[in-house]
């Protein structure tokens, strides 16, 4: 069934298809339509879930933690300051190994107040132990929401999926809604191995001494290390059943390219058109879309670059900034490729752009390509594109 819908409603449809049982959320622009649509679905019975309308995001995450610990499938959505307010509970969800799925509508952080998109809200949660998946289209949002539950429940890790505020959250696109019966086969009802149960009483999250704490963190790390292969297997199933897949990293027209753009989120769609135009003009430019930021797809990126061989320059487009450092994807990519051999490691040029919802047009991307080609940018200092200080 095809429907035209905005990204926020695509999230709600994914939640409905996954037959989520407990939702708890707090409204924040530009996530509100997720909450509104889910409220409608719960009210009209198309989604048989309990919706706990809490007084804050901190409580929203706490409530889904309680539900998840009791063995049901739980979901929340937030954005920007709401996500930051959840921060403590993000660690709790991950440390407690609760397979919660959350949608974050990427929005800048104040002050000054700004409701438009950038990735600093989610990227400042990168060390909380959540899987992070950045989506490019509304179709990808629906599909990823459902797959996220499968991934989360397979490894007992929470999964956060991101969509750009307004560019995706409020933009209508045609979406193919997967068949519910097939989704039910793909994602059966959750069967929690450990849960709050009076017939089998256990204590969860008790004090852990230094002699055991590291082992618990190691088990968490081990689970996160399994994410790439698990996600690949899940995507293979999705491809087989629904004819679509995305990959943790996608190479677009990258064969034979000497310069690669690295993107995430909706900038990717604009970058694809730039690549198409450059290719048509005979320029060997390609694209790597990084969908999965946590765990960082180090092996996938190294393999891709090895396989492509000829890439000498990489331009990373970062709609985010680690203040005092640089674009975050660029920094992580540099770290991931640091010990490649001299002939294998491309020059990495970082570009900070599009903060607080500023447009990233083909011209902006063109400027990044020109700078990377000219090689005038010191590779350890990211260039801010389109800034007039």
């Amino acid at each position, binding site marked *: 069934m095809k429907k035209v819908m905005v990204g926020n409603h695509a999230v709600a449809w994914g939640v409905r298809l996954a037959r989520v049982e407990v939702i708890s959320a707090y409204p924040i622009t530009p996530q509100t339509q997720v909450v509104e649509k889910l409220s409608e679905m719960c009210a009209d019975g198309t989604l048989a879930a309990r919706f706990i309308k809490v007084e804050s995001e*901190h409580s929203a995450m706490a409530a889904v933690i309680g*539900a998840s610990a009791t063995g049901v499938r739980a979901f929340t959505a937030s954005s920007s300051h709401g996500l930051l307010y959840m921060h403590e509970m993000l660690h709790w969800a991950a440390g407690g190994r609760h397979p919660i799925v959350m949608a974050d509508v990427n929005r800048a952080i104040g002050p000054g107040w700004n409701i438009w998109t950038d990735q600093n809200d989610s990227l400042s949660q990168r060390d909380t132990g959540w899987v992070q998946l950045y989506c490019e289209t509304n179709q990808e949002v629906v599909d990823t929401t459902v797959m996220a539950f499968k991934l989360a429940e397979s490894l007992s890790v929470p999964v956060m999926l991101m969509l750009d505020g307004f560019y995706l959250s409020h933009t209508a696109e045609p979406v193919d809604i997967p068949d519910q019966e097939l989704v039910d086969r793909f994602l059966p009802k959750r069967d929690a191995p450990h849960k709050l149960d009076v017939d089998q009483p256990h204590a*969860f*999250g008790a004090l852990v*001494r230094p002699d*055991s704490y590291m082992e618990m963190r190691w088990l968490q790390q081990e689970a996160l290390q399994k994410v790439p292969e698990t996600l690949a297997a899940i995507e293979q199933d999705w491809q087989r059943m629904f004819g679509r897949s995305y990959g943790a990293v996608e190479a677009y027209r990258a064969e034979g390219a000497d310069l690669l753009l690295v993107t995430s989120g909706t900038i990717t769609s604009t970058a694809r058109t730039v690549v198409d135009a450059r290719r048509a003009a005979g320029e060997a430019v390609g694209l790597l879309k990084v969908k999965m930021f946590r765990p960082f797809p180090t092996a996938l990126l190294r393999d891709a670059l090895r396989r492509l061989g000829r890439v000498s320059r990489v331009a990373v487009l970062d709609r985010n900034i680690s203040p005092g450092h640089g674009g975050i994807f660029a920094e992580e990519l540099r770290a991931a490729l640091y010990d490649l051999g001299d002939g294998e490691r491309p020059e990495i040029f970082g570009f900070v752009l599009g903060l607080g919802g500023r447009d990233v047009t083909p011209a902006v991307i063109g400027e990044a390509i020109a700078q990377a080609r000219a090689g005038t940018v010191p590779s350890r200092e990211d260039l801010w594109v389109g800034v007039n200080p």
Partner: protein
Amino acid sequence: MSQVRIDECIPTGELLTSGHLACPGCAAPLAMRLALKALGPNTIVVMPACCFTIIAGPWPQSSLQVPVYHAGFATGPAVASGVRAALDLQGKHDTTVMVWVGDGGTFDIGLQSLSGAAERNENILYVCYDNEAYMNTGIQRSSATPWGAWTTTTPAQFPESTNKKDILGIMAAHGIPYAATATVGYPVDLIEKFTRAKGMRGTRFLHLLSPCPPGWKCGDDEGIELARMAVQNRVFPMLEIEEGERWRLTMDHAGDPVEPYLRRQGRFRHLNAEQVAHIQTGIDRRWVALQRRVAMSGEHALSAVPSAVPSAAPSAAPSSAPQPAGV
């Protein structure tokens, strides 16, 4: 009070084991022991950060024989809301979900979450065991610390300078089905209140005064007696409030003077006579206000026992109140 045989009133089954890690003389494990006797094994405990995080025992042990979820400090009522929703979806409507947390997690950092859950009338039982300061971190003042008390952040030269927050009044104002006080000093009354609360639906709030020998600077063997004194001198009246409207005293309160209660605790040792009198005035004023609330609800005949100190009408002139030393 009429004579009761304790062994006929208190169930014999135990759901709190020995070997827990409470300090000697702590009232909290006794309260938990009695609470679980009343609630039974069909109970899930949500436990935000508090002394009981330690008392319950470190992984892989647990002194509670019911499921426990150790929760973030501010999150007890929110986590419990999620647990409740999940249990209801599984048809487990009879399972009691109890939040068990101290005064810091209730009066201070958890108040927003608690107010949210109460406003939604979540079907949970919320229990605050109140030892009147952050005892687990080493006796720092909370908004439950009484006026005049020493803590490590309100030293004797500048003791606690504000009145204890009226948490029961705040909870009653939410119109929740049941709000009550209790203490281990009166175990039968405590059991009865937990049993009543268990039989009700919606948000139920129990406020337990919980003597803490290290924090109150009293003897390990004095907690029960201090809890009884706090009731009889009206520092901590025993009452029940239904729907925020029907207020009822659940026992007679002798109206003993507060001074002996204060003198038994090192945390009040620095107080002079004027300051003790100020505390007494506050107790008497609150008692008058409480009697009015009870009379207004018409549920209960007032105690005929007069206060030891003549009650004054509520005064709007705090300027005459003595200030803590050092102000």
